[in-house]
């Protein structure tokens, strides 16, 4: 019997997710025995053209990481969707938009002007900007078109399963792959990670006082954080209450607060808004001036509450469907 075909592909991604697949160590050899890897641009030399002649649904599973920001990424995502039975959005970028999604706070023109004209390290006297087509010595060269904003994968194609994280931890990757191979999958649209919030499994949870009340917000580098006490109780912003569990608490263990790479808990669409609610209710302030002072103490509120999820937030979705 032919082995099931699996594709691993990166779109707008840093490569960390592909690295995470390699991080499952020798287990990957077992996976390679059980399946036929037909595409993995970061590790293996297969071309997109070898996918095009395939039949629809011939690939069992496509593991796609990274967000979509240009026409090439969109084309590859649509090609893989057409040829695959299952698509797994892998990592925070594919699931939620990821950190590159913060680029949505600026326009494409702003970004281009900074990168190709205004940044102090740029020397570009001729004012050259990347073009989708350029004629050089009579030959036509092409580049993908960059879109006006960053999209999460499910804005472009239907996605069957989600595995968040920046990057997803090895134990969840293995669980996801074996669930596909054994056919023991939850209903479509599920996130293949625990449903609870990170605070539920956090070791520091016991240390938090009965009624949380913080009067000042501090940044992690400004104080020496106690490694055993809840970050929020110390006045340090931690996204644990609004973030899905399952990451293995890699950040907590090195005394760094949660930044929310696992996205919202089950049933919540907009993790940032949910976090704002949670944070507001533990602020111990009495007067309007106090609210103002403490709210202004939060540097970059969007960066904190939507670090990994800006493109999938309701505020962006409302008008952002068109390209």
């Amino acid at each position: 019997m032919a082995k099931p075909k699996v594709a691993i592909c990166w779109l707008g991604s840093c490569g960390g997710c592909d690295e995470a697949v390699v991080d499952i160590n020798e287990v990957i050899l077992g996976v390679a025995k059980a399946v036929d890897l037909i595409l993995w641009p970061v590790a293996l030399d297969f071309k997109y053209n070898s996918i095009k002649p395939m039949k629809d649904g011939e690939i069992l599973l496509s593991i796609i990481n990274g967000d979509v920001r240009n026409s090439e990424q969109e084309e590859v995502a649509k090609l893989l969707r057409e040829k695959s039975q299952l698509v797994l959005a892998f990592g925070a970028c594919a699931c939620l938009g990821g950190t590159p999604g913060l680029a949505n706070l600026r326009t494409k023109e702003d970004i281009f002007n900074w990168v190709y004209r205004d940044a102090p390290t740029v020397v570009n006297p001729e004012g050259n900007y990347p073009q989708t087509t350029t004629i050089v010595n009579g030959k036509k060269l092409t580049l993908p078109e960059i879109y006006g904003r960053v999209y999460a994968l499910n804005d472009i194609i239907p996605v069957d399963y989600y595995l968040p994280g920046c990057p997803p931890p090895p134990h969840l990757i293995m669980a996801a792959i074996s669930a596909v191979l054994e056919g023991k999958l939850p209903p479509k649209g599920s996130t293949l990670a625990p449903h609870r919030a990170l605070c539920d499994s956090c070791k520091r949870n016991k240390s938090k006082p009965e009624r949380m009340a913080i009067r000042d917000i501090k940044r992690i580098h400004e104080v020496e954080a106690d490694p055993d006490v809840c970050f929020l109780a110390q006045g340090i912003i931690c996204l644990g209450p609004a973030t899905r569990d399952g990451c293995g608490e890699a950040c907590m263990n090195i005394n760094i607060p949660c930044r929310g790479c696992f996205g919202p808990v089950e049933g919540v669409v907009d993790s940032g808004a949910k976090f704002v609610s949670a944070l507001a209710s533990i602020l111990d302030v009495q007067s309007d001036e106090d609210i103002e002072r403490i709210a202004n103490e939060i540097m970059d509120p969007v960066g904190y509450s939507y670090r990994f999820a800006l493109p999938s937030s309701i505020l962006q979705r409302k008008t952002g469907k068109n390209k």
Partner: protein
Amino acid sequence: MSQYKPKVVCFSCKFSWGYLADEAYLSREIENWIPIICTGKIDTTHIMDAFEKGADGVLILGCPEGDCHYQDGNYEAKKRVYLLCRILESIGIEKERVKIELSSDPEGRRISKLVKEMKEELAKLGPWKGNVVAEKMPQKKEIKAGRGK
């Protein structure tokens, strides 16, 4: 073209707003009026939900300061609205789209007045733009064509 008519969702606490009035009458009078018990119940996700379903603005009417039936629910709502407004502002959405007023009007006559006032304010702002990015997306002209020379 018909004139732009903003939609406002109004949440009001039953402990201070309109408890003497006929609720059925008021809800015919005020579009998208949601009487609730305690504004402390309103989560930012409810406000977002209103926006997602087509609201242009959200007005929250809570009890006067120090008068919350459940100790400090009105104040909790105020803190949430304040933080949410900061987020909206940094994303490029006018903070005037979310408003909270802590006061009291048992007969509820002021509710429709306040909603009307907010609608007028929103009409000046124009329709919901989502954010700057979505707004300016299709522009390509600013980028120069060709390779310089």
